[in-house]
């Protein structure tokens, strides 16, 4: 299984000062699989994605993409491996000095995949996939609502049709219908392009729609991992408490600390 995994995280550790955030995370994601990572606020989900992207250097552990450790590979090789990743940041992270279409086509232009003269038309096509019309293309990010910004950010993440897609809370801040649309879009991208994806979410309905598999991050480790269909019958008290949103249970201890 792990031999052919698209992404493998092994024994990943990261602390900020004395605060241990990741304490030996192990996670394998098979090719063409949609993994959903759930976990409480502040449990280190975003940090995990940023480690995979190389934006935060981990203290210890391995991150294998296509079987190669990106942490020890030469810089140019690591960059090539990571170049197949598209990322949706939790807060969108749109470039506010660039228009919407320039944001969406940014990665395509930077990789020289299209001509600048073709870029706007291509961006409009991708925007249509996330349910945004051409009128939005010439606006600037600060002229959009939060949900629209999220969709533009999603369009930017998928524009280059990356082999690996990381989504940090793709549906947070969207109304339920648009949330379902975005979930459908993510599923579609992953299935159509054959991409491997990791999505972070707090929303169990969304997790069920997006994920083939679900992993729960708690106390710096993956405490449960299994098929999405089995999450309700996991038998793990941490998972049960989380998905049912109960105040009483083992996770409360962690909050009090």
């Amino acid at each position, binding site marked *: 299984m792990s031999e052919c995994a698209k992404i493998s995280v092994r024994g990943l550790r990261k602390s900020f000062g004395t605060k241990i955030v990741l304490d030996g995370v192990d996670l394998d994601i098979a090719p063409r699989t949609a993994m959903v990572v759930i976990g409480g606020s502040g449990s280190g989900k975003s940090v995990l994605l*940023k480690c995979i*992207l*190389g*934006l935060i250097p981990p203290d210890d552990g391995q991150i294998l993409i296509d079987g190669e450790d990106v942490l020890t590979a030469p810089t140019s090789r690591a960059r090539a491996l*990571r*170049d197949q*990743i*598209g*990322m949706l*940041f*939790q*807060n969108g*992270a*749109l*470039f*506010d*000095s660039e228009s919407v279409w320039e944001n969406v086509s*940014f*990665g395509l232009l*930077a*990789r020289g995949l299209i001509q600048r003269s073709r870029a706007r038309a291509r961006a409009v096509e991708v925007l249509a996939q996330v349910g945004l019309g051409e009128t939005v293309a010439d606006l600037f990010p600060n002229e959009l609502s939060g949900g629209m910004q999220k969709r533009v950010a999603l369009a*930017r993440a998928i524009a280059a049709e990356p082999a690996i897609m990381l989504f940090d809370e793709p549906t947070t801040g969207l109304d339920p219908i648009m949330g379902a649309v975005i979930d459908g879009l993510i599923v579609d991208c992953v299935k159509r392009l054959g991409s491997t994806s990791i999505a972070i979410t707090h929303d169990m309905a969304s997790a069920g729609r997006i994920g083939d598999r679900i992993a729960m991050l708690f106390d710096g480790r993956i405490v449960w991992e299994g098929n999405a269909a089995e999450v309700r019958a996991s038998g793990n008290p941490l998972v049960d408490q989380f998905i049912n949103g109960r105040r009483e249970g083992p996770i409360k201890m962690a909050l009090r600390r």
Partner: protein
Amino acid sequence: MIRLLDPVAALGRVTLNLVSFLGELGLFTASAIVGLLRPPFYLRNFSRAFAEIGFFSLPVVAMTAIFTGMVLALQTYTGFSRFAAQSAIPSVVVLSLTRELGPVLAGLMVAGRVGSAMAAEIGTMRVTDQIDALSTLATDPIRYLVAPRLLAGVIALPLLVLVADILGVAGGFLVATSRFGFSAADYLHNTQQYLHTADVTSGLIKSAVFGFTIALMGCFFGYRSRGGAQGVGSATTSAVVAASILILALDYLLTQAFFTA
């Protein structure tokens, strides 16, 4: 015993912090310069930064230069008339401006105006993950954000100072001809008489260095800012303070290098 060592430990900590800060700055500068030497080049970002420094700072720098030229003429007259040397006004005005006041005052004004804006913009990009987003989109943030701004600073500030030199002389001219009875021809003749090319070029070289410094400080403090709006605010302040002090210190060093060697 532990108490006794406290000051030593503190000194050690400060030294270590300083060394790591300088190391960080050195690496940052080096990668920006490498970014200028090898493609891709980001022309659009360069022209934006160039317009910001060179064009939109014109009014501020022009005002500064005119008033400085005027006050120089006034001071020189009142001071030099004590030993009947008023005819030196044009030379004093043009030499002080080209060699010293043009570059330094324009540098300080631009540091306040553009250095702070650069730190705020890049700092905001940092705390909203936009810089991280750049690197996930196959773009080196230092190459994309920093290199074009440094180049713009190096080119735009000398041009701005050239304008400041001319306007400053015009300010002096205005005061001397309207208040102290200089004839226009005399004033212009005296202005040229003792002016060497080196006076102007040394000032322009100074301003290229200052332009680099302003952009570097703005980018560097913005780039390493942490912790939301407050972090961006303090990055902005640090950028302006650091750029201003460096301008004054470098001015001394460069003057020494140019004119006493």
